[in-house]
């Protein structure tokens, strides 16, 4: 029987929640359930009929927004749990609930209601229904949006005795279904298809659909990182092995006994030493393509997904911090794009992508009880087609427990293959292969998923807080890209084989075909290898924590990955071929594109007023100004660990690095920071990469990080990676990574790449449009500091403190070049000064140069200052260069007058300039009154070149954020 429960807030008259319930509950039981769903102080509830008489006086239409069949409905899941607990329903009993939101509109024009409905829902995942609100009733459909799947033959053999043309087509568009439709991209090129053909010819049979899909997943760019693995030009071992891993190996060797790397590149995250008892892990992922289609779902899946890279590190690390990074089109970009020529598949607006992504990280992080500490946001028109959504997680894991090294794991032949967490649905099919190609009208909607942070929180707690410490399993990994096909095959490497009874996998709804179950990326699942003798205890524990756990097979040492479906073998592939059969391509690059000369920022010499204006405008730039509207909606204080927060000082500036204390009774801290400079890449991707690396390191050192205990992570987001020129740019930037890492002795411990961030579609007039992101490299840094009490925040603290600039300023209004050797000395000097507690404030100089750093330090501390640029450089530089050059390796610090002597002595061997002082009259209350203490004056010789005040700058700095609130 189908009924509806409506819950309506008493104070808000234009909204209601609806729960469509398909069950065998009696009227009385429904009443009881409704009581459980409404808080009588805040809400009223109604069953089946809605009191429309009064509503109809004011409103004409009701818009109902619900999910499309099969899309994760988290609230629905909770209602199901409430009902199950309330009525002691058995698990198998028929109870289904579909939630939706109802909004009432005043306008009596249907067209208006339709317009509003369009802005309220995303047709890729949601449905909208518009009903007239009438005096007597309002007719919303009483039909359950159930998933109904067409009955299909479970397994088909794919004919391989075909022409190359057909092989190409299969690789590009997918296997042909019984009814002639294609199943979606395999992203296998002709060479790969031919290798598969030869392999199966030897076996004298055709591959089954599940075998081919499985190979496509395992061999995908997303999983195998072929561009980084393949030989390229004369680099025989490929970019990754030669430069990324190569740098780490060299650094570890040089460090000898001081090497702090423990588990790098081999696991779901990279792990380094925290102290004698713990390791910390870090991993940063991207979730770009899904976020373009469904920003909320894409981002939340991204963050809860990377949490599983932490839970899946070693035998399970506990997530202790989240990080994020967003590259968006500008929020006011009104351009309209479509994925198809007929203009029926509109792309979401820039603002909706921004809002949805921000909310996705909000819900994913906040609901998981993991502090979201560190983040950045960048804007560029070229991120309008595909936004970049970086999501990362830091984990904490004991080094030893139960006599085991916790970062090591090994499935053993004879262990059960156990899946825990969510169930399998059609969501996320072809996610791995989809993200390995250009996004266009063929992009499958099933590639979009919505994360369920609570299911994962239960799973995470049960694993890393209980089962792990009880020593109940031998190995664990995440079900991410490629789903079971990748996680089982990956773990099978540890023992040499696996046998899966796929019909045992728990499903969200019946009717899925075996290949779909095998590769589905349905979220919140981990795969474990549980010894048979421990299964009983494991199962009981999971059940008591509300976590579903199912045995789906057994690990073996047969050398094969075998999958059965209802007693029949449907997949039988050699592990060797599955993992290593992918043919190598020799990639070739062609010379890097012509680079434009450094753009001069300002022509001619300008007077004081003009510099002030430029200075203020720069601070208002969306790529420079504050984003407290994001930082404040992310819980960064859960777990009680925060030390240097995302916002600092009375003026609440965004910090460039954050510090937290993951073990509450230890004074050791973890420093997180990042560097990203996509705009430099237009001129040189080599310098873009060195600047990103230098910035990440500098940001970490500026607040108290330790250079000798600092590791870095790389995230390459590239575009059109089939283009030889783009590949040449990639090679340049990877070489830069090597140079930087080796110079600083900061090893790479983990990385990820996303190589096809291109959008191909149409504008409003149906003209083809292609938007590719600028080549983008994110370097993330993680460092351990010995004593959190020595952390230095970026804002000026006290009136009368001396202001110093550390590092050299060069004529670099365009793209700066990094001098690693000089910068290294500067950083070591600063590190020492911070350890000796000589520094009152310290801010890294990044976008906008010295002037912007000065402005931020003033705004953060709500203090004015007077500085002179006379001594800033040895060479004669123009005023604008002194103000705005983005030369790397520089930090702006303030030092109490009592300590300047000691500070200067310590910095004697590095370049530093004393610039002036913070203002004497404190501007603590500058926000409340107009006291003049907040004046900011910059002199060049006798010329006053900038004059403004901190109150004004505070307003400018926060203006963008206030607009976005």
């Amino acid at each position, binding site marked *: 029987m189908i009924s509806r429960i409506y*819950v309506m807030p008493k104070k808000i008259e234009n909204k209601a929640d609806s729960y469509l319930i398909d069950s065998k509950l009696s009227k009385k039981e429904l009443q009881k359930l409704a009581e459980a769903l409404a808080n009588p102080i805040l809400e009223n509830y109604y069953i089946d009929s809605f009191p429309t008489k009064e509503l109809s006086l004011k409103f004409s239409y009701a818009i109902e927004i619900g999910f499309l069949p099969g899309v994760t409905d988290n609230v629905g899941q909770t209602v199901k749990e409430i009902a199950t607990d309330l009525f002691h329903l058995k698990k198998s009993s028929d109870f289904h609930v579909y939630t939706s939101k109802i909004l009432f509109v005043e306008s009596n024009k249907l067209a208006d209601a339709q317009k509003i409905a369009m802005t309220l829902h995303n047709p890729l995942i949601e449905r909208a229904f518009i009903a007239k609100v009438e005096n007597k009733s309002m007719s919303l459909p009483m039909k359950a949006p159930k998933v109904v799947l067409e009955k299909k033959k479970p397994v088909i053999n794919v004919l391989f005795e075909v022409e190359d043309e057909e092989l190409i087509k299969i690789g590009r568009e997918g296997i042909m279904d019984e009814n002639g439709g294609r199943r979606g991209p395999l992203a296998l090129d002709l060479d790969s298809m031919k290798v598969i053909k030869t392999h199966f010819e030897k076996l004298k049979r055709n591959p089954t659909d599940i075998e081919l899909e499985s190979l496509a997943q395992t061999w995908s760019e997303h999983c195998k990182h072929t561009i980084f693995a393949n030989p390229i030009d004369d680099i025989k071992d490929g970019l990754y092995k030669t430069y990324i891993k190569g740098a780490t190996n060299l650094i570890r060797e040089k460090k000898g006994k001081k090497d702090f790397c423990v588990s790098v590149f081999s696991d779901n995250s990279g792990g380094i030493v925290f102290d004698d008892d713990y390791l910390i892990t870090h991993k940063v992922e991207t979730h770009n393509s899904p976020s373009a289609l469904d920003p909320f779902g894409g981002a939340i899946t991204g963050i809860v997904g990377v949490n599983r890279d932490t839970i899946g590190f070693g035998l399970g690390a506990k997530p202790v911090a989240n990080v994020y990074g967003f590259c968006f089109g500008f929020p006011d970009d009104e351009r309209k794009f479509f994925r198809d020529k007929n203009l029926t598949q509109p792309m979401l607006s820039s603002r909706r992508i921004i809002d949805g992504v921000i909310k996705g990280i909000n819900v994913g992080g906040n609901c998981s009880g993991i502090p979201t500490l560190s983040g950045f946001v960048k804007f560029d028109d070229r991120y309008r087609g595909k936004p970049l959504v970086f999501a990362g997680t830091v984990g904490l894991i004991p080094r030893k427990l139960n006599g085991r090294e916790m970062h090591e794991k090994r499935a053993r032949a004879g262990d059960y293959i156990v899946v825990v967490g969510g169930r399998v649905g059609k969501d996320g099919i072809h996610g791995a292969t989809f993200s390995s190609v250009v996004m266009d009208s063929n992009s499958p909607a099933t590639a979009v998923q919505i994360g369920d942070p609570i299911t994962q929180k239960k799973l995470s707690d049960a694993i890393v807080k209980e089962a792990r410490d009880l020593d109940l399993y031998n190995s664990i990994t995440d079900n991410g890209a490629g789903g079971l096909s990748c996680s089982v095959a990956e773990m099978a490497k540890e023992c040499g084989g696996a046998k899966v009874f796929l019909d045992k996998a728990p499903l969200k709804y019946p009717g899925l075909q075996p290949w779909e179950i095998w590769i589905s990326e349905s979220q919140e699942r981990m795969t474990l290898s549980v010894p048979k003798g421990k299964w009983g205890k494991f199962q009981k524990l999971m059940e008591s924590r509300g976590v579903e756990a199912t045995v789906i097979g057994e690990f073996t040492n047969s050398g094969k990955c075998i999958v059965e479906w209802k007693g029949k073998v449907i997949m039988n592939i050699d592990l060797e071929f599955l993992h290593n059969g992918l043919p190598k391509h020799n990639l070739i690059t062609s010379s890097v594109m012509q680079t434009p000369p450094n753009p001069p920022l300002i022509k001619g010499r300008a007077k004081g007023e003009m510099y002030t204006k430029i200075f203020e405008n720069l601070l208002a730039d969306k790529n420079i100004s504050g984003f407290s509207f994001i930082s404040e909606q992310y819980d960064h204080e859960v777990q009680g660990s925060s030390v240097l927060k995302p916002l600092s000082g009375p003026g609440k500036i965004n910090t460039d690095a954050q510090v937290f204390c993951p073990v509450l009774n230890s004074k050791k801290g973890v420093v997180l920071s990042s560097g990203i400079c996509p705009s430099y890449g237009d001129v040189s991707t080599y310098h873009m990469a060195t600047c990103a690396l230098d910035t990440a390191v500098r940001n970490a050192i500026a607040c108290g990080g330790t250079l000798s205990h600092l590791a870095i992570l790389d995230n390459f987001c590239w575009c059109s990676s089939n283009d030889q020129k783009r590949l040449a740019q990639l090679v340049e930037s990877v070489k830069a990574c090597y140079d930087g890492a080796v110079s600083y002795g900061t090893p790479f411990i983990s990385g990820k790449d996303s190589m096809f961030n291109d959008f191909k579609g149409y504008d409003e007039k149906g003209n083809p449009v292609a938007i590719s992101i600028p080549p983008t490299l994110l370097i993330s840094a993680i460092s351990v500091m010995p004593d959190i009490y020595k952390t230095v925040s970026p804002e000026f603290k006290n009136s009368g403190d001396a202001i110093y600039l550390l590092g050299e300023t060069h004529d670099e209004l365009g793209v700066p070049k990094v001098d690693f050797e000089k910068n290294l000395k500067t950083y070591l000097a600063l590190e020492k000064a911070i350890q000796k507690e000589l520094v009152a404030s310290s801010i890294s100089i990044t976008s906008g140069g010295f002037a912007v750093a000065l402005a931020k330090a003033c705004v953060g501390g709500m203090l004015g200052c007077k500085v002179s640029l006379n001594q800033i450089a040895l060479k004669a530089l123009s005023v604008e260069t002194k103000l705005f050059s983005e030369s790397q390796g520089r930090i702006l610090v303030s030092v109490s007058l009592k300590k300047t002597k000691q500070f200067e002595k310590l910095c004697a061997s590095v370049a530093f300039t004393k610039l002036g002082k913070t203002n004497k009259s404190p501007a603590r209350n500058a926000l409340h009154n107009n006291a003049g203490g907040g004046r900011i004056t910059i002199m060049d010789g006798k010329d006053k070149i900038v004059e403004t005040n901190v109150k004004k700058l505070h307003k400018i700095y926060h203006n963008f954020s206030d607009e976005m609130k």
Partner: protein
Amino acid sequence: MKSKKPKIIILSGYGLNCEEETKFAFESAGGEADIVHINDLIAKPKMLSKYQILVFPGGFSYGDDTGSGKAYANKLKNHLSKELAEFLSRDTLAIGICNGFQIMTNLGILPRALAHNKNGKYIDRWVDLETHSARQDLAESPWLKGIEKISLPIAHGEGHYVASKKDYENLKKNNQIAFTYAKGEIYKFQNLEYNPNGSDYDIAGVLAYNGRVLGMMPHPERAMFSHQSPLWYKNKKVSKEGAGLQIFKNAVNYFLKK
């Protein structure tokens, strides 16, 4: 004077997530705290009788789906009503922090309800609070001894305490208002709205059972250390202990001093 440490039970499960730091706070204050999954308590409800302090920590139980605290409260009502009533009838203490407070209002242990913040958004920042020592009309409680003004962080989406004028008068009359949002150090430091979620009559925490039961939206366990305060960087030379710890110490001392 007995010196046996009081035993504290901190509930967990289904998305509650502040249990570990809350345990740390109670233990730093001298108590002996256990984290117990709600399903383990349901399986052995009698264990509640060996505890003196019951804690509903912060978190996101059931993801706030259908309204914050509702689903977790339903589960408690379905299985543990009798045991909870028995616990509260003894000379015990109980506290609900943030989501724990929302759970306790849904259970009816604490009065009224919490609705969405006035701007509709989740917010994480620090606030200032006042207690009875600062405002005569607020109530006394063993939890609040020696606290006049205190600054703590909030982090919630549904923290707007809902009370009509009549409710407010009743709450005052019955000595049930523990904390109000106020203009204090943080307000002066960062010039922020002092009552960011729009709580009626600035109410941030309430009491029941003669002050033995406290519910509050701000998180004292996130103010255990002085370095957690945004004010710390201005003056690092202070005691390492944060203001929030006093609340936990008060609870522990209530039993130690008996």
